């Protein structure tokens, strides 16, 4: 059989060669291949490949008709020759090329990293079918009694009415969360599960990876069945393919695994899908009739063709009807729908857009710097450019030539920036995963690649256009006439000053942003929360129904736990609460003073209700204003916060008075024994009116325990956990942490924002100072003669120093003024992101401006000093 040339090489050639060369080149190659193959087929193949690669790299030119060839410059051909020329120039002067590419790589890399997060968080659709039609449903609580709250959980009866009466939705499912304790597998492990209504998986339209989801009958019979997440299936069942049908023991009861959801279903940013497992939500008739207690979330899918506004209107109309039908429970309670995507992204959008804007400013500054460098080079090469022009290169041609150089540099910078971004994402994504929804999904995908390419091209144009225009405008005659003097100061110096002004102005805006963020963070850290978080250790514990079935047993258990913990050396006080401050969540309930009629929900005041033990107030060092703290022997008793006392009793002393919490019991009036200070639930918000409730027995099992320690709370963690486990090893102890760390954790996104802005501002400051320095050095070099003559004529060192310093400070000052104006204009965008300080804070602006001025002086000093040390003799002799 005769050997054939490598088929892939032939197709490559066929693809690359223009039709007019196709036959000739391929024919020639095949002909010679046959001759060569006669002696050695492999050698012939290697030869064919070498020829093919060289042909593909530089095929014979497709001919425009020959007489057109010389003279005119087809764009592509001159472009390629410009690229080649640029590469040659850069290989000759690598330090310049590397410096420029490095600056651009940092700029583009930072932009790419931030964009990839924006891409993952804001642009990539949620991993469900038709994600745009998924909405979550909420109550809108009466503003008179729930000031500032826009949404609220649902009550079962209202949810069922919504489900029955609405036409806008293609399925609707309620869900809430429960804590299960996995036993029989060594140490007890607390597992969070979502109890989901019948339509939950149908609404999300995600089929299980293994087995099935829940059957209709499993929602009525309280069947002990589970659907697992991919993560739990992997970590606890070793990803066993036969996991379906196995039984897991939770709280002493067997649960059968009926299905496993695919990995993509576990969307980290939404509680209902983050959980390791799902159970059926089955309401008893009694539970389903509850209307006034709001403890459930809901997800729904809009019907095709129904828009959000219509669905909202419909929920509002149904809610109105329910208000009229059940005024005692529903007066003032509206309904609304919010797209799932919006809830997940929420506040992050503003934050990310701000960061993207900030990092874009850094890139702009980098562009200005690089533009300066390119201009400096173009000026040094004015001779070369003038000669090109003299030989017939038009302005457009010169412009193109210089622009191509900067584009080549930007392309190199973009490629390096992509690598940097990859590294940054690798390091940063996991750190951010908890703070920014879906940040862990940040990767380099097609969209990010497109972004890099676009950013590189734009950067190349931005950095190159001004110098290229400027150089193209250079007057031919002047340049050639200047003869040996290639350092005329005037050339391009206006452009350079303008670039300095821009750099300084942009830097000031970034510095201002960073300054305001830092002050905001500082303000948040120093918020008076109303309790003292120093030296407090906290942990979560759940006395489950399985181990402590009755309220009395639970109460006794926790009393004993407290005794043991208080006995530990180093513990000064210990108490527990159902929810600790600043950790989010907690119950808000209406409260009725004894002797007064219960009003409808629109008028009945609400308070935050915290069920606590004795000594809790002492442990947290919440000031006791009047009356006394709870005692161990107390039955049911209240402590009220100052705000709650004012809200409910006005100026009357509440101590000794009684009130009821209708959601807990309408009949049991509880006595107020003391008044305590207000405590913030969230750092950036007002302290809500709060009731602390001491119960004689405990209807629920999960509490957070706090201990005030003599020294570092971390030292006590081990002993505290050991003391609890010595009592009951079956109970999982969770989230052991110091209260200070708990607060710091709530600041993570503020910290992240401030940190990134600091980094960007620092980069901007460095770039700007380098820019000022290099421009001044260049200007001084250009005015050597002038300075020499001045010195020879008697100018003192200080005169020269002052002259050069002013030369640098003038554009810097203009930049500061412009930047201040820009910062004040941009302040509106930041206002919602800062706390305790205005985004246009004049003090911060003054400090930042002063800092920038000092940096400008510092950057100008060295060139100025050099100028003042010029020896007039040498200078004048040289020229």
């Amino acid at each position, binding site marked *: 059989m005769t050997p054939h040339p490598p088929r892939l090489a032939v197709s490559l050639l066929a693809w690359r060669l223009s039709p007019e060369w196709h*036959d*000739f080149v*391929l*024919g020639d190659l095949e*002909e*010679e291949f046959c001759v060569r193959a006669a002696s050695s087929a492999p050698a012939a193949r290697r030869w064919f490949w070498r*020829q093919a690669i060289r042909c593909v790299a530089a095929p014979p030119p497709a001919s425009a008709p020959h007489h057109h060839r010389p003279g005119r410059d087809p764009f592509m051909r001159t472009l390629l020759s410009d690229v080649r020329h640029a590469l040659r120039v850069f290989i000759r002067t690598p330090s310049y090329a590397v410096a420029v590419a490095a600056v651009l790589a940092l700029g583009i890399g930072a932009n790419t990293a931030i964009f990839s997060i924006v891409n993952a968080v804001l642009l990539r659709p949620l991993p469900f079918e038709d994600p745009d039609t998924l909405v979550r449903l909420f109550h809108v609580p009466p503003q008179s009694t729930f000031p500032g709250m826009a949404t609220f959980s649902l009550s079962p009866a209202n949810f069922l009415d919504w489900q029955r009466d609405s036409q806008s939705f293609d399925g609707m499912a309620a869900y809430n969360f429960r804590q299960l304790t996995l036993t029989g597998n060594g140490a007890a492990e607390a597992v969070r599960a979502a109890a989901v209504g019948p339509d939950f998986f149908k609404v999300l339209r995600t089929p299980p990876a293994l087995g099935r989801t829940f059957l209709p009958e499993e929602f009525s019979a309280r069947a002990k069945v589970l659907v697992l997440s991919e993560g739990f299936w992997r970590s606890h069942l070793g990803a066993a393919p036969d996991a379906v049908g196995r039984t897991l023991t939770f709280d002493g009861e067997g649960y059968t695994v009926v299905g496993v959801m695919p990995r993509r279903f576990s969307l980290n940013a939404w509680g209902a899908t983050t959980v390791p497992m799902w159970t059926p939500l089955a309401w008893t008739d009694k539970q389903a009739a509850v209307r006034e207690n709001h403890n459930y979330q809901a997800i729904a899918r809009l019907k095709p063709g129904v828009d959000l506004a219509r669905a909202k209107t419909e929920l509002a109309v149904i809610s109105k009807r329910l208000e009229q039908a059940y005024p005692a429970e529903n007066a003032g309670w509206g309904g609304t729908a919010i797209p799932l995507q919006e809830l997940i992204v929420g506040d992050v959008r503003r934050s990310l857009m701000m960061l993207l804007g900030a990092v874009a400013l850094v890139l702009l500054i980098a562009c200005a710097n690089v533009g300066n460098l390119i201009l400096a080079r173009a000026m040094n090469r004015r001779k070369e450019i003038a000669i090109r022009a003299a030989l017939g290169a038009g302005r457009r041609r010169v412009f193109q030539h210089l622009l191509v150089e900067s584009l080549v540099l930007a392309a190199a910078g973009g490629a390096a920036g992509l690598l940097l971004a990859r590294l940054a994402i690798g390091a940063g994504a996991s750190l951010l995963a908890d703070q920014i929804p879906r940040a862990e999904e940040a990767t380099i995908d097609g969209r990010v690649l497109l972004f890099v390419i676009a950013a590189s091209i734009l950067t190349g144009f931005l950095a190159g256009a001004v110098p290229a225009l400027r150089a193209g405008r250079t007057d031919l005659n002047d340049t050639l006439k200047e003869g040996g003097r290639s350092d005329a100061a005037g050339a391009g110096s206006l452009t350079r000053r303008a670039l300095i002004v821009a750099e300084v102005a942009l830097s000031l805006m970034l510095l201002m942003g960073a300054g305001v963020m830092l002050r905001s963070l500082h303000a948040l850290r120093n918020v008076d929360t109303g309790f003292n978080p120093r030296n407090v250790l906290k942990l979560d514990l759940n006395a489950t129904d399985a181990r402590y079935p009755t309220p009395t047993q639970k109460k006794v258990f926790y009393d004993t736990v407290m005794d043991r913990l208080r006995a530990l050396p180093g513990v000064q006080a210990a108490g527990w609460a159902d929810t600790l401050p600043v950790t989010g969540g907690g119950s808000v309930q209406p409260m009725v003073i004894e002797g007064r009629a219960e009003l409808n929900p629109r008028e009945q005041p609400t308070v935050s209700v915290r069920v606590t033990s004795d000594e809790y107030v002492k442990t947290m060092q919440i000031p006791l204003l009047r009356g006394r703290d709870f005692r161990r022997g107390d039955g049911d008793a209240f402590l009220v916060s100052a705000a709650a006392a004012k809200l409910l009793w006005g100026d009357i002393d509440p101590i000794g008075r009684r009130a009821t919490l209708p959601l807990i019991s309408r009949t049991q009036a509880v006595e107020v024994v003391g008044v305590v200070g207000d405590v913030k639930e969230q750092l950036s918000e007002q302290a809500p009116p709060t009731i602390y409730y001491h119960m004689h027995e405990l209807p629920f099992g999960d509490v957070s325990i706090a201990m005030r320690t003599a020294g570092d709370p971390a030292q006590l963690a081990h002993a505290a956990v050991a003391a609890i486990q010595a009592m009951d090893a079956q109970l999982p102890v969770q989230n052991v942490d110091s209260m200070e760390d708990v607060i710091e954790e709530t600041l993570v996104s503020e910290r992240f924002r401030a940190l990134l802005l600091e980094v960007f501002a620092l980069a901007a400051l460095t770039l700007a100072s380098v820019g000022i320095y290099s421009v001044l050095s260049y200007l001084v070099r250009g005015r050597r003669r002038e300075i020499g003559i001045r010195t020879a004529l008697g100018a003192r060192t200080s005169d020269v120093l002052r002259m050069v310093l002013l030369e640098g400070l003038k554009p810097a000052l203009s930049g500061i003024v412009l930047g201040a104006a820009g910062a004040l204009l941009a302040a509106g965008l930041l206002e919602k992101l800062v706390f305790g300080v205005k985004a246009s804070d004049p003090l911060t602006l003054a400090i930042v401006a002063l800092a920038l001025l000092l940096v400008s002086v510092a950057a100008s000093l060295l060139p100025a000093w050099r100028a003042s040390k010029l020896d007039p003799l040498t200078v004048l002799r040289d020229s």
Partner: protein
Amino acid sequence: MWFKSKAAALGDFEQLVLLGVLRLADDAYGAAIRQEIHARSGRDVSINAVYTTLDRLEAKGLLRSWAGEPTAQRGGRRRKFYALNPSGTAALRQAYHAMQAMADGLEERLNPK
């Protein structure tokens, strides 16, 4: 311009290609020229370089070209043949003479025993 009447100056590789065309006479097509250059000068050039140069020389008017008949040996593809124009011969002659004149009397040093 002053030197318009003179023959075009030729690059080194252009000279090799033109000499190849001259030497191969009626059989001057890409692969043959490539092999001729390889065999005689030892330079293993690529086919695209040969055709690019031929194309350029043709554009300068030093060569003319025509397509031959398809042959089975090359998968039914045609060859592209080249021949020198008078101006091509003149340019080659001038380059040759220049070389000869410059090398005159140096033969011994250029051909060491």
